[in-house]
């Protein structure tokens, strides 16, 4: 048997969590170093998977198969295909940089890193498993630590409210996902949760597909987040500590889009056809409403939070076009948006550690005092508003091409939203980092060399995948092609 590299992507963080558990709370540096080493090894493993994945044949690779509860059709199956490889890498990058960004946390360090890495383990599991039982198992693992992470280490007096709202909305969504998965299992009549088998053999009548797709749309939609279930997201972002915001916006929200692309669309293509217009309408709400709300925000994290709502709307919009280009755009947008928001939040976090405020109106001229923090936020902003050369540009372009072709007017509205995005990002950059220096902030020091490392990693990733998108796009396309074929639009 080959080296079970995917299992190790789960085992290494688990061992890291266990090691942290057995540390004394006072050994803060030891805990941080253990976390860094653990996530570093995981990142190396994820990179190995990314590089070693055989691009000449695609499909599920690195497969591991262990019968688990045979009678109930549950098998431990890990395997990655073109869709999951980039997301596994994204998660590994996010958690590795997240550990570095959280270096300054002094309060209850042990529990913080324990929960953070536990959360990332769950996300890895979701991206790698090919069995629906394990999908469900990992899916909520990713949600729960979020509550404690935000409620204990978050900022702002609303943090508990935000944490509760996030947890409950996501659990509300996952109730539909669980019900949907169980019904998928039953309706197929194959007595298996094996997703590959189901994709190959299961036949669902049109009516069932329609109902089930609705369930998955509500369930995954709440985590995407789709309008009108998005309200947990900006609030959760704003109150969470930087590393948690990074994981949250960078990876957790991708679970929704991933679930749609992985489970709902391949198994229920007719369901998507029934609900595509609804999805398109809601995604337009996301894009337009998110962008305009972002303008009105004074808190930088809220602004980024609403811009995430708007950009994740692009994912849904891309899916709703049901074309290869649109699906490619949607999948690529998930990857690109993950990197951008991670960069946003880590650079805001670096500044917030010094100023203890994120209110645009209170800041000003920060670039004079903290040139590095300003530089990286500006870079994130440029990437976020879709400047060519960065990954999001490619993703949004694909979505727009597909969108304009399919829903002319709405496609154009989506394109126009980029202008709005540019407006609020540039205004924020101008007001926060340039302009008259607020004397209150004089004497603050810039972020340290160590703080810069995670930011540089993220910028490099954004740049590489922006200049050379086919590195990821080819991978994604190998899967989206199958989806488009099922949807009959290839």
């Amino acid at each position: 048997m080959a080296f079970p590299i995917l299992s190790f992507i789960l085992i290494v963080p688990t061992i890291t969590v266990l090691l942290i558990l057995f540390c004394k709370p006072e050994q803060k540096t030891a805990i941080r170093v253990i976390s860094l080493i653990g996530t570093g090894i995981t990142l190396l493993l994820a990179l190995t998977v990314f590089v070693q994945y055989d691009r000449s044949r695609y499909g599920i690779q690195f497969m591991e198969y262990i019968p688990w509860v045979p009678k109930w059709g549950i098998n431990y199956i890990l395997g990655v295909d073109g869709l999951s490889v980039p997301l596994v890498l994204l998660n590994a990058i996010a958690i590795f940089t997240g550990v570095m960004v959280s270096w300054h946390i002094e309060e209850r360090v042990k529990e913080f890193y324990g929960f953070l890495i536990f959360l990332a383990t769950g996300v890895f599991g979701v991206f790698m498993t090919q069995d629906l039982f394990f999908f469900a198992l990992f899916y909520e693992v990713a949600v729960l630590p979020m509550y404690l992470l935000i409620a204990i280490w978050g900022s702002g007096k609303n943090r508990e409210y935000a944490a509760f709202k996030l947890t409950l909305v996501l659990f509300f969504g996952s109730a539909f996902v669980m019900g949907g998965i169980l019904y998928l299992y039953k309706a197929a009549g194959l007595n298996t949760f094996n997703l590959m088998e189901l994709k190959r053999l299961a036949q669902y009548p049109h009516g069932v597909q329609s109902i089930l797709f609705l369930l998955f749309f509500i369930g995954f939609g709440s985590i995407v987040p789709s309008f009108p279930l998005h309200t947990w997201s900006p609030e959760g972002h704003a109150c969470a500590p930087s590393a948690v915001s990074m994981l949250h916006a960078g990876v957790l929200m991708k679970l929704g889009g991933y679930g749609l692309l992985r489970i709902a669309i391949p198994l229920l293509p007719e369901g998507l056809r029934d609900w595509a217009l609804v999805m398109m309408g809601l995604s337009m709400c996301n894009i337009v409403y998110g962008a305009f709300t972002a303008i009105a925000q004074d808190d930088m994290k809220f602004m980024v939070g609403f811009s995430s709502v708007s950009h994740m709307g692009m994912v849904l919009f891309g899916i709703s076009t049901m074309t290869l280009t649109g699906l490619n755009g949607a999948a690529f947008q998930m990857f690109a948006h993950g990197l951008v928001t991670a960069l946003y939040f880590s650079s805001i976090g670096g500044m917030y550690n010094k100023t203890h405020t994120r209110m645009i109106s209170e800041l000003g001229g920060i670039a004079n005092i903290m040139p590095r923090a300003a530089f990286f936020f500006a870079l994130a902003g440029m990437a976020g508003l879709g400047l060519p050369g960065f990954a999001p540009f490619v993703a949004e372009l694909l979505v727009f091409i597909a969108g304009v072709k399919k829903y002319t007017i709405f496609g154009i509205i989506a394109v126009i939203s980029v202008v709005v995005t540019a407006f609020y990002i540039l205004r924020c950059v101008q007001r926060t980092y340039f302009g008259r220096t607020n004397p209150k902030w004089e004497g603050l020091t810039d972020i340290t060399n160590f703080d810069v490392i995670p930011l540089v990693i993220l910028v490099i990733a954004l740049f590489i995948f922006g200049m050379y998108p086919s590195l990821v796009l080819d991978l994604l396309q190998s899967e989206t092609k199958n989806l488009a074929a099922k949807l009959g639009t290839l």
Partner: protein
Amino acid sequence: MDILPEILCFILSVVFLFCSLSKTKFENLYRLALIFSFLNFILVLLSINANGLYFYDSYKVDLFSQSVKLLLTLGLFLVIYMTDSRSDEHIRKMYPEFLFFLFTSNLGMMMLSSATELITLFLSLELSSYSMFVLAGFLKHKRISTEAAVKFTFIGAVASAITLYGYSFLFEYFTNTTLFAMRAASTTVTVDGIMVVGLLFFLGAFMFKLAILPFSFWAPDVYQASDTSVTTYIATVSKVAGIAVMLRLFMFLFPVFINIEKVLLVVAVLTMTYGNLLAVQQKDLKRLLAYSSIAQAGYMLVGVVMMNESGASSTLFYVFSYLIMNFTVFLVADNMIKEQGDSSIYALKGLSQRAPLLSLSLLLALLSLGGVPPFVGFTGKWMIFSAAISKGYLALVLIAFLNSVVSVYYYLLVARQAYLFPPDIKEPYTASPTLKIYSYFAIAFIIVFGFYPTPLLNWTEKAIAILMSH
């Protein structure tokens, strides 16, 4: 001897009864009870593969009954462990009597899990219930305790009366009282409306034991007012016995002639929704757990009324995990309540900083009760619901999953006291070594069987297969 555990249990209760006549020291009795209840557990473990019919077909010992007894004796041991020297003065003063009732009640429950004849069933039921009525009123100096015991007794008596009324219906149709004879005769019986009504009446006392609507109104008061050890006993051990009887009836007798699945599913949905919605408002930890256990009984009922193998084995699986999860919560809560003399959820304030291990085990147990993966409570629920969905109840499963979202909310309300707030008492809480060992065990159980349920599930499947066989 297959019924050695029952005999030991009986002898012990008599011994304790006589102890009450002399002045035995509390510590000695405590040690004696602990040792012998553990011995009882071992005896059950040794007889786990026993198989036999006793007393003219009225008492069946098989893997199923022994598995249930394993849980019952484990529960008894842990409950006795809880009544240590820090427990209420009234309990310590009348400790022999307390133990007497505890053991008779446990004897009743053990018999309940083996009884295959209706009169035996009823006698064991009453034996276990009446002892519990007394136990509930043990804190004589508290008015609410007496009030709760009276409520408990009245509702219990009504439930028993209803059950007896149901008996008369059944006897009318079957003219026999052993389950084997009834099963054999069921082919010739015609099922009509009156029979269904009789059957539902018949289930009354068992629903009372499980605190299923409409027999659940005693639970919050009794849970709140009794001593924590008694509350724990009622919430865990007694539920196990109730489910055991239900499983025997629903798997052995009912499926051959009748289908009352739809009626009881409505009851199950109402029960879980009622329990979960009312738990949200509670500030008293024991009262909250009472409503939560009502809701949990609703989930278990779903598995029972499926009347198929997968439903029953997953219910038994869930019962196993339910016992461990609930004990974890109660043991931790009990320690805090004893320390602070306050049973509100605020007693747990800052626990994570004072006793990280206890706090972690509490958190995991609560989340597991709420059905959060990757813990055992999730896996158990998943199994039960997948049994339900295999019969096509999509709406039921959605409601049940949404219910568990509500339950996560109030379980988190408890957990947040432990994790988000600074403690009132600053110095660390030193738990006894045994409690620490139990905590490690519970954490391991909750995670390992959540992730890898196969061994436990194989066991429960085997037990159910034996239960169904003739």
